[in-house]
């Protein structure tokens, strides 16, 4: 509760700021609708088709790899928190790290040798 409230206040202030920006531009800006102003900008040429064309799925691979590595990296954080305190009790956590990192490195090497990141 004590931690949530300041954040909630900040969120409210930010939302007010956003609403203010929106309203001020609507009030101050001139209205002069010229038809060409509402077309998609493609360097002056009339757009041939809609923009919604399918893309290469390499982008999906990047996002998926990010998700998986993000999960792994997120679990590093609690490990790092207790590591310093655990040093007094021997290297148990160091071994845990090495096993964990070894597995993560195998994954990383696998990605890199697949050369999937070369999008062109």
């Amino acid at each position: 509760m004590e931690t949530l409230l300041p954040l909630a206040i900040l969120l409210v202030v930010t939302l007010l700021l956003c609403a203010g920006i929106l309203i001020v531009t609507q009030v101050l800006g001139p209205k002069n609708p010229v038809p060409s102003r509402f077309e998609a900008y493609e360097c002056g040429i009339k757009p041939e088709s809609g923009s919604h064309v399918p893309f290469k799925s390499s982008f999906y691979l990047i996002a998926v790899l990010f998700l998986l590595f993000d999960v792994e990296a997120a679990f590093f954080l609690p490990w790092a928190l207790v590591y310093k305190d655990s040093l007094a009790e021997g290297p148990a956590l160091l071994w845990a790290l090495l096993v964990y990192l070894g597995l993560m490195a195998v994954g990383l090497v696998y990605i890199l040798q697949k050369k999937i990141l070369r999008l062109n």
Partner: protein
Amino acid sequence: MKEAVFTFFSLFTLLTAAGVILSRNIIYSAFNLVLCFFGLASLYLLWGATFLSMIQILIYAGAIVVLFVFVVMLLNFEKPTEQKTRFSIIVLSSAGVWTLALILLRVLSKSLGEIPSLETPAKASVRTISKLLFSQYLWPFEVLTVFLLALIVGIFVLARPEKEETP
């Protein structure tokens, strides 16, 4: 005060969850999903589970839904291609689901109502959780890493980019 904040964020979470399953346009579903996870994170924060609240935003809102939005953008359906579900199915499943929910609510409030709740809820500190995770639950944790590694390899087999696709 706490009740008001709790009510607000619960309603927010439930409304956005309803938005996820009711939206016609997938991008709105994804957007509602982000807001829903945000509401859940706020509820965790309200109860004092700070670490989990941040992990919720970091992984769910920051990574999982990004993946959903990526897929929506990659597939790029101009119009919703989904066919309408038959009305009878909707009626039947809603009746079933809400009956189940009522039963669950009864059972839970009966069995969990007995649990004495602490006067001032103990703050499960980040340190306690981390210690627990890396002592008692160390092995499940390592197994999870192996699982993630297998996943990385599996994903490549699943989502191999095809040569003839347009860039």
